[in-house]
């Protein structure tokens, strides 16, 4: 046992979050199917919608980046707690001197790192093989990082229901993520969507990340950049607080 004297509780908990990040990477994120799914699925999904429409190759890239970010940062987060509940490792984890908040922060960090890293792939592919013209790199990096943080928080929020079977959470996850994807201006710019869609789009965090990424490639953003950053941070805070609350409520369910 380590004495608490001389160590701030905050530092200890932050360190524990990094240990959880390391555990998640080793156990869940570095699996070949996860890596392949993270890269291939967004590319094919986007190409399926692009085919038959008159969109220049360079115009595809911002959407591909946003999709890759969306599907990777929020992909594994919903599954981690159900997997751990099913394997009975959750009980051991919550009996360690690590708060639920720190465990979940570690889960968010995992999705954040994975989503940010994988999103670099479509950026590089776009630069190498299309006429996509990146005009604002800092804005792209900001969009990817804030988006990854928000989508990873969404993933962790989706892991809150006390299910020991990951398939139930997978269903819920897709029920939430797919509709949000369609209203976020990835396939059709928000200004070209029907009026009702224009009202719904601000409810999706992907709309803001997508707007920033598009702006980085030279499009006029639908939302001001400052509003995008603010909204993504608000989404992150609200979703993380909600997931902490729900995980505390359902802490011992299904043990």
């Amino acid at each position, binding site marked *: 046992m380590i004495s608490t004297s001389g160590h701030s509780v905050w530092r200890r908990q932050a360190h524990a979050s990094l*240990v959880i990040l390391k555990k998640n990477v*080793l156990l869940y994120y570095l699996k070949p199917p996860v890596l392949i799914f993270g890269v291939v699925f967004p590319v094919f999904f986007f190409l399926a919608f692009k085919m038959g429409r008159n969109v220049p190759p360079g115009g595809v890239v911002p959407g591909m980046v946003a999709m890759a970010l969306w599907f990777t940062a929020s992909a594994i987060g919903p599954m981690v707690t159900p997997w751990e509940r099913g*394997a009975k490792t959750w009980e051991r*984890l919550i*009996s360690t*001197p690590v708060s639920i908040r720190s465990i979940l922060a570690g889960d968010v960090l995992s999705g954040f790192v994975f989503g940010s890293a994988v999103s670099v792939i479509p950026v590089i592919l776009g630069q190498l093989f299309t006429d996509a013209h990146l005009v604002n790199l800092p804005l792209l990096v900001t969009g990817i990082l804030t988006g990854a943080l928000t989508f990873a928080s969404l993933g962790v929020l989706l892991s809150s229901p006390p299910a020991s079977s990951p398939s139930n959470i997978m269903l819920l996850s897709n029920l939430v993520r797919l509709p949000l994807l369609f209203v976020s201006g990835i396939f059709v710019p928000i200004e070209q969507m029907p009026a009702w869609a224009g009202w719904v789009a601000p409810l999706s965090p992907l709309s803001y990340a997508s707007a920033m990424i598009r702006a980085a490639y030279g499009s006029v953003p639908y939302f001001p950049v400052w509003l995008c950053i603010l909204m993504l941070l608000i989404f992150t805070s609200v979703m993380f607080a909600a997931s902490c609350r729900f995980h505390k409520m359902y802490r*011992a369910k299904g*043990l």
Partner: protein
Amino acid sequence: MVDEVTVNEPVIRVNGLTRKFGDLTAVDDISFQVGRGEIFGFLGPNGAGKTTTVRMLTGVIEPTSGSATIQGHDIRKESILSREHIAVVPEQANVYLDLSVWRNLMLMAELYGIPRNRRISSGERLLEALGLFTRKESKARELSKGLKQRLMLCAALVTEPEVLFLDEPTSGLDVQSARLIRKIVTELNADGLTVFITTHNMIEAGDICSRVAIINKGRIAAIDTPGRLRSMVRQGRYVEAVFVGQSPPSQKLESIPGVIRLESGQGVFRLYTEAPGRVATLLAVQTAAMGFELEQLNTCEPSLEDVFLYYTGDGGSR
């Protein structure tokens, strides 16, 4: 009746702890203390509330009412601080199956903030002591049940706990693993580790526990040392006699003053009594007078199993 025992230097203090699941009261107003350096056994039949108690004390579930402290830290108000002093070995080995033995160990040590040098040296020492060093790089899923349970014990001990919670640690294990786990726990206890162990194994409890509590239907039925608990169950005491050659008739033995009942089989007679010393003397004198020669004469206390059955309602009326 449960005596309120105050122990020296209590590490665990439990006061009126209760846990309800809907209408079911799994743990009902239990109170006890565990002193520094004790091996405290928590015995009870299935569903008695043992695991629920462990889960409350280890911060996995919240009590409905009552309070408990570990090393002076309230398990509800200072949950994280109280958990810094403990480690848990659950009944079902819940290691990360896709991580190696070594990674499992280091992960737990890192979560407790054990510095790198210390966690590496103590990790290697523990793997050596529990016979896992050669399996250091094996995935946990490749280990047998006994080896997984040893790994769980390593992963708990590498966190340098002051209090170790063991929930049925040797249940269903091979003899070697069970014996090794008991040996390590006893050795660590000799070095000052406090141990809280739930078990069904009465021989194990009798051998290693300094005190035991018997819990039944969520309530504590008795707490004391195994020896004193055995002596408290007076109806379970008996005199055992074996005769050379022919044995006296059962009616003669049953009529000895103080004998409550007689059991016999294969030439062994058990005379149950609340006063075994007096009955043994009378037995020796009276049978000698009748011309019978004794080969063996022993006074016996009830086993911890008898005590357990007595307090959990399956051993006759109290």
